[in-house]
């Protein structure tokens, strides 16, 4: 069920990623194994080079300088120089390849994440916190990128540790054993460290998402903030959330301060052990000074790789936590899905007949369903008005026709076919919805109109604008139809935006046009011209008008009165005015909204909706 689905997914988002993430992390590298593999190979070559380097330098000093054999010195210096070139090249190849693979993986995930979000149904977006989603795109993907880009160097380090361990055991099993007795401690500590730091990292990521949520809200609601001078309140709010982030970050710092010193001190303790034990072994002539020196050199070489383990542990956990958080969204399945290919039915020719059969729809956390066993038949070509109190389910009916939601039970049919059996794109092409909050894209006026129909000619564009009463103001804009609008462009008034949204829908030539409070910001004179224009144009197409304005409603062939998710009355405006007390109530024509005074002077204005006392 749509509604239930939306609810579960919304809850999943609080998942802090306590477990798992491995498979997602690995899968995200798919297609980049070659680059990442090249980087690992280069890292191994690099490790080999830097491991050989002390040996060569040692030999150059011992043989070349101490024995004053200048020819040998020359040879070793030459070898060191070659090694330098190898090391440089290997480092370049490693950097370049892990840079490429990590950034590409990140960009790919970002793309998939966005396209997944766009595919999730409106019911999901109604309830989701945008800041949390934004934070996943920036912060969580960055954590995954940082891990992937550092993994080759860390693999190189692990290789160095393993190689050196073997060399040490071969050189002296006893002393080697003493040096390596610490390795299991590292493994155990790392394991404990991972387990402890992960929950804190998970909470930290979530709190960061919440913080992004507060910022996002403040920026989108900046007009309300400024209008009330509510800056202080929001600063407090952000302050509390920033403190929550800080507290979690501090918890991570404390965990690091607890465990990382153990990992850091291990190589030092190894050095202490081999020098102390080794000292005695030298004194008792079990080993040579040279061997002890070699052990020292090798253990110093290991210090870096061993100390990087602590960093690795944390970065891996960060990447896993973030993978879980990304995965949680990627695994959400759109509840509005295409019909199976073999069962998809093309929409037959028709004039936009719509039928609702026992439709129920509700949000899981809402106390009662929005629509409850709802039945409605709209004939093709009919102009129908949906009227009802706020929250009666009118807008849900509109969204169900365009299949922006799916009903929990029952079915919605368009020209006789269940909308779930038709390709989603076909349904949405057949149904044009104009919302009250009309979103305009960043781009020119023409770009925005062509959202309705990409191939529309300039003449069609102008015609649609004319019908929506938008042509006049568009032509007065500095660049006419090429004027930039949207976030970066000209700011338009509410009425202007509504008319553009309307023109966009007209241009789409849908067989069902749904106007969901679409002309609320347009004055009544304009609204009437608009509706009459559309009526003429649409001819045999269905128009669904959602409104509270009596003058608007009166233009409909038939009016349907909704209340509490059910149809309570249908008929013409005049019929309902006469027969339904509830209808008169909803339109404010009886029961307490009658006012003395001016209303009496203008009987031609039956709707009291826009009445506002002063």
């Amino acid at each position, binding site marked *: 069920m749509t509604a239930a689905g939306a609810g579960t997914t919304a809850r999943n988002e609080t998942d802090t990623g306590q477990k798992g993430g491995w498979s997602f992390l690995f899968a995200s590298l798919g297609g980049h194994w070659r680059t990442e593999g090249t980087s690992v190979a280069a890292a191994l070559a690099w490790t080999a080079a830097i491991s050989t380097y002390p040996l060569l330098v040692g030999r150059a000093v011992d043989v070349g300088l101490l024995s004053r054999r200048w020819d040998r010195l020359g040879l070793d210096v030459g070898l060191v120089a070659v090694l330098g070139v190898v090391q440089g090249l290997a480092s370049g190849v490693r950097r370049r390849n892990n840079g490429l693979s990590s950034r590409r993986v990140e960009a790919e995930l970002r793309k998939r994440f966005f396209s997944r979000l766009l595919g999730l149904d409106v019911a999901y977006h109604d309830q989701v916190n945008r800041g949390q989603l934004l934070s996943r795109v920036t912060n969580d993907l960055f954590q995954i990128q940082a891990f992937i880009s550092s993994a080759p160097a860390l693999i190189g380090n692990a290789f160095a540790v393993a190689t050196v361990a073997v060399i040490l055991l071969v050189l002296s099993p006893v002393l080697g054993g003493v040096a390596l007795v610490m390795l299991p401690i590292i493994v155990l500590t790392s394991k404990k460290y991972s387990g402890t730091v992960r929950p804190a990292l998970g909470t930290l990521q979530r709190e960061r998402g919440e913080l992004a949520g507060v910022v996002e809200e403040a920026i989108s609601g900046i007009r309300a903030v400024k209008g009330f001078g509510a800056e202080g309140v929001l600063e407090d709010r952000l302050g509390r959330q920033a403190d929550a982030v800080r507290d979690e970050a501090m918890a991570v710092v404390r965990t690091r301060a607890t465990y990382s010193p153990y990992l850091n001190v291990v190589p030092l303790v190894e050095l202490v052990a081999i020098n102390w034990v080794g000292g005695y072994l030298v004194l008792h002539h079990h080993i040579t000074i040279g061997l002890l020196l070699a052990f020292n050199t090798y253990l110093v070489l290991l210090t870096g790789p061993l100390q990087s383990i602590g960093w690795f542990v944390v970065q891996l956990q960060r990447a896993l936590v973030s993978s879980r958080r990304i995965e949680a969204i990627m695994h959400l399945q759109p509840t509005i899905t295409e019909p199976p290919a073999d069962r998809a039915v093309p929409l037959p020719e028709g004039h936009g007949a719509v039928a609702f059969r026992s439709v129920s729809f509700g949000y899981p956390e809402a106390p009662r369903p929005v629509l409850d066993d709802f039945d409605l038949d709209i004939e093709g070509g009919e102009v129908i008005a949906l009227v009802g109190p706020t929250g009666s389910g009118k807008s849900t009916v509109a969204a169900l026709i365009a299949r922006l939601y799916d009903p929990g039970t029952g079915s919605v049919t368009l020209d006789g076919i269940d909308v779930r059996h038709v390709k989603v794109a076909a349904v949405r092409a057949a149904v044009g919805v104009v919302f009250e909050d009309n979103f305009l894209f960043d781009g020119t006026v023409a770009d925005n109109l062509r959202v309705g129909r990409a191939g529309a000619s300039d003449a069609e564009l102008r015609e649609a604008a004319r019908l929506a009463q938008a042509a006049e103001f568009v032509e007065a804009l500095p660049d006419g139809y090429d004027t930039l609008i949207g976030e970066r462009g000209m700011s338009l008034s509410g009425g202007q935006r509504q008319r553009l949204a309307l023109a*966009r829908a007209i241009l789409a030539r849908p067989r069902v046009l749904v106007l969901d409070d679409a002309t609320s910001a347009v004055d009544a004179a304009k609204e009437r011209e608009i509706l009459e224009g559309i009526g003429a144009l649409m001819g045999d197409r269905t128009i669904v008008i959602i409104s509270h304005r009596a003058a608007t409603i009166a233009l409909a062939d038939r009016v349907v009165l909704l209340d509490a998710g059910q149809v309570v009355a249908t008929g013409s405006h005049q019929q309902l005015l006469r027969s339904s007390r509830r209808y008169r109530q909803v339109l404010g024509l009886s029961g307490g909204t009658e006012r003395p005074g001016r209303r009496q002077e203008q009987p031609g204005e039956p709707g009291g909706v826009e009445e506002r006392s002063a």
Partner: protein
Amino acid sequence: MTATAAAGTGPSQQRLGRAARQMMRPYRGKVRLAMVTVIGALATTLAGPALVEYLINRGLVHHHSMRVVDIAGGAYLAVAVASFAFTRWQTSLLSGTGELILNDLRKRVFAHLLSQPMAFYDGESSGQLLSRMTADIDTLESLVQSGIGTFVMSVGLFFASVVVLVVISPVLFLATAACLVPIVVASAHYRTASTKAYRAVRLRIGETVSSLDEGLAGVRVIQAFRQEESVGEAFDRRNAEQLAAELHTVRLASVFFPKVEGTGVLATAAILLVGGLFVHLHLTSIGAVAAYVLYVGNLFNSIQSLSQLFDLLQSSGAALSTVVTLLDTEPTMTDPEDPLPLPDRGPLELADVHFAYDGERPVMSAVDLEIAAGEHVVLVGPTGAGKSTLAKLIGRLYDPARGTIRFGGIDLRCSSLAGLRRRIVIVPQEGFLFRGTVLDNVRIGRPGARETDVRQAVEALGLTDRFAELPDGLLTEVGERGSHLSAGERQLVSLVRAALTDPAVLVMDEATSSVDPGTERWVETALAKLTEGRTTITVAHRLTIAQRADRVALIDQGQVLEVGSHDELVASGGAYADLFAAWQGAAEPTR
């Protein structure tokens, strides 16, 4: 500041340094302690080799002394313990203090953002602003969490190694320095190029965030018009641009750092050669060359560690620079030094007011209007005439380009903004709700108001029963963007907010979302009680409301065409009379 304006070089290094020092100032004590632990940790790093040398030379080679072995072993153990302690303190002090500093930074950047006037938000993409507060500061946090210790230690080790090298052999150090010259030259070039490249990445991130934010905000329309693909493609383009910017940094780094590493090793080879020559010429001892070579290893190790961190360091530097650029944007609307208090009541006077959003195309020109205390004036006119702009000017969301707006005889610009907002409140009736309860949302009107104050405000507007109908009354959670409440209920919350502020002047935008008359009744009653006795300026989208106002101002093309009571204007037969006639005609049902 726009994205393109910020795309330049950004603030200077000196400015960034000053900003960093300023952020650290409150934590001077902790920073100093952290430096002590860094020095301690460095000392333990450098002490190890010295102890091994002591063990071998004194204990094993010359004396064969078990005592020396024990002393060296014991001392080394002590060094290990000290290192353990220093690492622990260093982690909590460096990262812990870093977190405190970032906590301040978040609050400061946010407060700075909110202190910007509306004009700033018109010109700035919200994705960029979001990105400053989230992606950029989070990057700094990554540095604080996982890089700062290594960074500070590496820098310390670098300088310690230089000192040691100079002490061991000044002559050889000159040779080493000669090898460093190409690196220094290359880094100067690299630094310029990479600073620009990393900064470009930050701005690209902002663009991607914008794209994402826009996609989420418009998801309903995108789906209804099947724009998933084209919106997805637009996002992909931004995404690809971000990727290209990031790959540019990767390329720069993957050419530069190999040069540094290779040069480091080549330098060692050169030192061995030069050292051999010097030994041959008896300019230096063999021991010195051997020790020198080992310490040069330290020097290049530190550079090596820094290069591992480099990406994070540069990203953080760039993030800091974009954040500092934002902090350096002076709010164009600031409080005067000695703000004048606004009187409790008074007339509003607009004299010769001019305004243009972009500074060029005038939206308001030469507007004169006087509104008496307690008067209700309705602004009418065609869409785009400038009604809303005039309302925003009265509420001082913008300052006029020319002319003055006075309340009680005092120019609004002479008052503090906080003082102004207590007297003049702008009520967007499509009440924007923040996550939290109804109570939280009402309190936005007056921070610190007690629950009883809120209840009084609700009661004063006659809404106690209406709010009691909500599942948890005033404690009902409103959901994301107020989605748990109906449009009418959101309007009611907005009105109670205003009542709680108790201003002298209300500037309102007539709500365009239509509400059923059931809720409308509550809204009307509440409005009537709210506006009683207060100066009210309403931007009307329909004319019904104009008939009941004290006066109507007809705005067209940024000018006040006519002012007067509804009846007067209709009687005079001017533009308003025409408008009203047209509206009235249209309001009659014809079918």
